[in-house]
């Protein structure tokens, strides 16, 4: 997809090449904790394509936020990346993100890859007006006159459909939750990044506000053409916004595919379990099934496939072997030894749908 629709004084021209913008290989992240090492991200692989939006779904503690934060190197001091690479493609040239020095890293963050954090309330400074926070961000990353920064701030606030001048002069507490979320989005867009990471962009917002943010994100993506990775425990947000979906379980991407494949043709029992656990609103009666057990202890993980203690498909082999993402269809991978059985069991439902 083209990224050339917007050009501002802030950005260099970006070559419009098809393909990957961010590539993650065998990425591991662990936290030091009292009881031992928390294995928060374990051997994650994926490519983010230009202009696409990739949803990371999974339950609390599955490592979604840690993964995203590792990509922009904002991990806390207690975290460590023992292995893995993150490659960003700048004008067709490879940038090794994990090896960037301080100066390059500053440029990478915000200008190339920006993150909007989980809580809209906490990530704005309560004692600073919106303008001061936006100016700080610009000033830290870019040499720009105050006037130009003001102009750019107005511009991005208009993009998120806010009354820009009024908002710039407001303190965060003077804004509603939905408005704060828009301000954060606008800040993410300030330096016109190629990649936007959104952590739970609509969680804790009212339904009607949530809907307006969803519509806004869809529209921004279409006009600005950036790539997004958005994190959500809410499957319906992925159904709304994602081109592709990655399911995370115990720090690993256990399934990755086009959004319709994930929702209509899931091959990993955990993805299937998540889908069956969500009550549907208008799609008629469907039986809800829960996943037995609870998520694993990340300090003391089960052997083999990390899902085996909860998996109704588990066989003896699953206790010993941890499968990698296996190709289960075009552009569709699942880390399950028994995906073919899942496919067979679902054949009835899936052909009915088709």
């Amino acid at each position, binding site marked *: 997809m083209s990224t050339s629709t917007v050009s501002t004084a802030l950005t260099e021209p970006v070559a419009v090449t098809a393909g990957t913008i961010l590539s993650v290989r065998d990425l591991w992240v662990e936290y030091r904790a009292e009881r031992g090492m928390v294995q928060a991200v374990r051997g994650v692989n994926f490519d983010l394509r230009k202009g696409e939006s990739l949803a990371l779904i999974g339950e*609390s503690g599955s490592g979604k936020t840690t993964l995203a934060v590792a990509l922009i190197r904002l991990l806390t001091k207690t975290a460590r990346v023992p292995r893995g690479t993150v490659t960003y493609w700048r004008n067709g040239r490879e940038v090794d993100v994990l090896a960037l020095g301080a100066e390059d890293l500053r440029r990478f963050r915000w200008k190339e890859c920006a993150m909007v954090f989980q809580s809209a309330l906490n990530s704005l400074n309560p004692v600073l007006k919106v303008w001061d926070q936006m100016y700080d961000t610009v000033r830290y990353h870019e040499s720009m006159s105050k006037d130009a920064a003001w102009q750019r701030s107005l511009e991005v606030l208009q993009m998120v459909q806010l009354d820009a001048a009024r908002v710039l002069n407001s303190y965060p507490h003077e804004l509603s939750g939905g408005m704060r979320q828009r301000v954060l989005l606008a800040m993410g867009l300030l330096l016109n990044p190629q990649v936007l990471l959104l952590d739970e962009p609509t969680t804790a917002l009212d339904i009607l506000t949530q809907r307006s943010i969803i519509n806004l994100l869809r529209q921004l993506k279409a006009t600005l053409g950036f790539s997004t990775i958005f994190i959500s425990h809410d499957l319906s947000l992925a159904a709304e916004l994602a081109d592709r979906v990655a399911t995370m379980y115990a720090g690993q991407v256990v399934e990755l595919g086009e959004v319709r494949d994930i929702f209509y043709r899931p091959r990993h029992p955990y993805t299937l379990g998540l889908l069956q656990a969500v009550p549907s609103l208008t799609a008629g009666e469907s039986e809800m099934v829960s996943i037995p057990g609870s998520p694993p202890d990340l300090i003391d993980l089960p052997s083999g496939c990390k899902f085996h203690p909860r998996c109704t498909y588990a066989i003896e082999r699953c206790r010993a072997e941890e499968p990698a993402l296996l190709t289960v269809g075009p552009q569709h991978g699942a880390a399950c030894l028994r995906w073919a059985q899942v496919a067979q069991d679902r054949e009835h439902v899936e052909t009915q749908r088709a």
Partner: protein
Amino acid sequence: MTNEAALLQFERVSRTFTTKRGVVRAVDDVTFAAMPGEVLCLVGESGCGKTTTGKMAAGLVRPTGGRILFEGRDFATMPERKLRVYRKAAQIVHQDPYASLNPIRTVYQTLSVPLLHHGIVRGRTAAVERIMELLTTVELTPPADFLGKYPHQLSGGQRQRVAVARALTLNPRLIVADEAVSMVDVSIRVSLLNMLLRLRDTLGVAFIFITHDLAVAKHFAGRGGRIAVMYLGRIVEIEPAAQLIRDPLHPYTQALLAAVPEADPDLTRNKEKVKLRSLEIPSLLQLPSGCTFHPRCPLFEEGLCDVQRPETVSVGERRAVLCHVVARQMAAAPMGPTTGDGHASDRAVGLDSRRDGPVGSMEVGR
């Protein structure tokens, strides 16, 4: 009009709070009745008054206007001592069991205190026996494994089950569950919901089930239950769950249903959207005139909606709506939408909600 058979009745109940910044109308003129064993789900967005309504139902907050009757008795005027008896019959389960369970008490201690204090059982042996039963009821099995556990040794779902078991210690007839499944992960939520439903079916406990999630409300209400939608302190629509989802009457309910994203890409992306006139949520300190939804409502009619406060209009026996325009439409077509259970009388539109109590009498279809 008082409904003899009702377990709980709200009659034009209001609750205001005085804050530094002014008077907040948290609950405004709310009327409904719940029969024994009935499920009533309260849905609405944050700050719409769900929790305050729930707390009043559980006797934890007194109304500042109107009457609340429990088994026909007005508890707003009850002396504190009597109210305590009432509080036994109505129990509340909160959103966050971590905050509501005492961290330094084991499961045994948490459950034995109310049992022994209220004389439900006598002596430790009887207490243990009853607690084992309760833990089995909430599916914490084998129960003996949980007696000595502290809250931090339990998962979120297990803690919520302990909170439910505690609510059951006093054999309540009503449980108010306030966002009781919202903080647990999806994979665990279903079994928690199903467990609560089983309690309704086996123990005959009535539920006021508060949630911001319409799909969860629909599931929990099931066939017999109803959903009440709240907006800025008022119930704007109340009716059997399936009907409300299929055929919502109030413009706000319609907007909500159209806005909810669903976990089905084709369905959710092709949903028909309702366009609101404004996204701003009015402040409870300064409510809009007339119908409080008027600044946002797509059906807004100038000179009517911004001037006159709508009254609840019943549409049949178990269905009521708070809207000038819908009321007019219903009055023009009295044979309009049926209530689903087919009685001819249900189709009449009663404009005089004041005397009849719009939802004062209803049967539970079970």
